[in-house]
């Protein structure tokens, strides 16, 4: 048996003899998660294991039970890929395969779904069938990055399984130092707030970067996320190195008759408490006794709040596009970093506009390649090297929207004429 991580408590041997005619071994601790009102993944796994009698499912449940008992994890990484790719499969070997030989391998395909996670039943059933044939039959929908995760396959089945998936129109997502699978909110498909066609841009951009998704050539991972308005339902600001967030440049559209309708239903107090006084910049005014509101659009910061409250009466303006924010990432090493405003407004309607965006991205990636360190996210590189250096290198114009305040220290050196 391999050396266990950390704990001294190595647990007793599994007793898989008498089992009341069940295929799976007893997992008394896990079974405590079968009940309760929220859908149980354990119940799902067990029912499925009993039906299909897949040894891998049994082994993985056994190892998971053991983890619950010892409070330690027992997977280790490795490198399994398909032909021509350097990424897309998360490799998992059991560290205690002598104990749980059926769990020896448990690799995962990261598969890129359609933008917005839309499916028809035909395509999804097809995935299920391929997956039940070659893999464990366990599926995560979806991983936090947005992949359809097919969890549990043995190394020698990966290529044939991938080939079948690929023939059905599916491709792998990123892992390691690649462009990663992107995520988008539902956007114009069903949302009245959408300010740009994030699904189209997502598809176009990620197809362009398919090669960079499959082969790790960056300093570190790079994620795109596309939210079609500032509500940011895709969490782009925190979870994406490159976030496109929809916005508008002109005035909020108001239909006063629906303001009245809302006021008639909820009252004038509610209009004050929930709309007027909740605007972060006090850009909304309402005269007592009237049934209209007025918006000072110069002072509106496009936060969406008023529109969210009365969507029937208020809508984003007509001149729509997206803001580019960069540098979002989670906790590792520098602490959570939210994306920073880089370009307040870009039009992304035409193919040319999207291509321009891609060109800018190419430029930025080149800069990052040259200036980044190993395992450094692009936002970290920008922070370490300096915003000014970054902007000048990639040709983004400095603008006051990039910051919440100008500097409070005089510690910079502007370009000076040393001849004087």
């Amino acid at each position: 048996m391999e050396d266990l991580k950390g704990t001294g408590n190595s647990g007793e041997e599994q007793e898989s003899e008498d089992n009341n005619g069940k295929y799976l071994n007893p997992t008394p601790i896990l079974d405590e998660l079968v009940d309760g009102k929220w859908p149980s993944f354990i119940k799902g796994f067990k029912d499925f294991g009993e039906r299909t009698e897949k040894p891998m499912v049994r082994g993985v449940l056994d190892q998971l039970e053991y983890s619950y008992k010892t409070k330690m994890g027992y997977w280790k990484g490795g490198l399994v890929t398909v032909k021509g790719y350097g990424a897309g499969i998360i490799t998992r070997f059991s560290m205690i395969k002598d104990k749980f030989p059926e769990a020896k391998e448990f690799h995962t395909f990261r598969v890129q779904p359609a933008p917005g996670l839309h499916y028809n039943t035909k395509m999804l059933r097809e995935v299920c069938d391929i997956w039940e044939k070659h893999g464990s039959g366990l599926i995560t929908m979806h991983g936090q990055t947005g992949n359809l995760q097919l969890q549990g396959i043995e190394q020698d089945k990966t290529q044939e399984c991938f080939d079948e998936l690929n023939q059905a129109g599916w491709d792998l997502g990123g892992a390691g130092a690649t462009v990663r699978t992107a995520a988008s909110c539902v956007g114009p498909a069903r949302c009245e707030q959408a300010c740009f066609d994030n699904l189209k841009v997502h598809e176009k951009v990620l197809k362009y970067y398919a090669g960079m998704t499959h082969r790790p050539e960056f300093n570190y991972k790079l994620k795109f996320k596309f939210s079609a308005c500032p509500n940011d339902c895709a969490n782009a600001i925190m979870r994406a190195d490159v976030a496109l967030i929809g916005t508008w440049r002109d005035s909020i559209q108001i239909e006063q008759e629906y303001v009245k309708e809302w006021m008639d239903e909820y009252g004038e107090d509610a209009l004050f408490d929930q709309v007027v006084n909740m605007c972060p910049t006090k850009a909304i005014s309402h005269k007592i006794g009237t049934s209209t509101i007025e918006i000072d659009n110069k002072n509106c910061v496009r936060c969406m709040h008023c529109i969210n409250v009365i969507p029937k009466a208020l809508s984003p303006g007509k001149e729509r596009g997206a803001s580019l924010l960069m540098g979002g990432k989670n906790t590792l090493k520098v602490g959570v970093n939210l994306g920073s405003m880089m370009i307040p407004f870009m039009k992304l309607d035409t193919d040319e506009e999207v291509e321009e965006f891609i060109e800018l991205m190419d430029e930025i990636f080149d800069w990052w390649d040259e200036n980044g360190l190993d395992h450094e996210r692009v936002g970290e590189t920008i922070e370490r090297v300096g915003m000014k250096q970054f902007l000048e290198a990639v040709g983004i114009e400095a603008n006051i929207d990039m910051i919440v305040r100008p500097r409070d220290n005089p510690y910079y050196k502007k370009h000076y004429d040393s001849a004087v």
Partner: protein
Amino acid sequence: MNAPSERTWKTVESGPHTLEGALHPVVVKNYGKWKYHKLIKPGVMVHYGHSGDALYTVRAGTPRQNTVDLIRQICDLADQYADGFMRFTIRNSVEFMFSEESRIDPLINDLEEIGLPVGGIANCVAPIAHTQGWLHCDIPATDASGVAKGIMDNLYAEFKTLEMPNKVRLSTSCCSINCGGQADVAIIVKHTRPPRIDHAKLSTLCELPKAVARCPVAAIRPTIVNNKRSLMVDEEKCIVCGACFGACPSMEINHPEHSQFAIWVGGKNSNARSKPQSMSLVAEGIPNNPPHWPEVNDVVGRILKAYKAGGKPWERMNEWIDRIGWKRFFEESELTFEIDMIDSYRHARTTFNQSAHVRF
């Protein structure tokens, strides 16, 4: 890497699946031309197009860690009620869309039948964003799916009713890296003890300079153990971040007792009203107690109870706290402020109260 003997298919690097064919016809017709939406009841809303079309959405929670059997059941319902289409949300709910109001209740009925609760729209607790845990990851100290299940069991009613001031997003992560993302309430493993080095493994398994480079505070130094080049950790400096463990599995940071939970509040990604905000540490040293994690559940419960009672309509967690102040947040949530909650990292200074503003 191995491949089957005769491979005739040449890989198409197609990237994301195409959207074409994946959208409901009413969606296609009204694409980009929606006018407004209305909540009908928990888990059900309707969107109206400028065309006059109505599109009903029924949303149900899922276990996220699914099986093909469950997906097939969902497909059955999609065929029956939603013309063969469905989508999943950012928080792993499944959504069925259709134009016939009459289908709403039968669908809800059938969903609940197969164990998928309908709810999660608008001012309620949405499903927890969680991570791989012991089921799959190579560095976890807990099983995020298990913790999430335990919490959602407890908050089931809050998923199905509309009694919160605004949306409540939760997340759970099995190490400090926090793949689950920040949230109104985030439940995240927090290591408390510097890594112990397995010198035998290290010399064979890890690239030494890589682990040294990974440490954000330069706490790892080369050394010689048993005549072999190895590493040591300066425990004074180490901030227990776990970055080295990701680079090198011999830097053992996981431990059944020393890897505990911390609870964070006020993370917000939307731009509505207040700016997006990173979350704040409000409870720590919570034991990692599978399979029910009662101590975690207790703290989460207290926080949500206080928010539910005190928040005003549309106020997110961070906005409620901002209004009442941190002191009262701790009081109302019955939590204890501790010295380690004072920031000590790179931008600590910017979190100090550099004013005489104080509440008594």
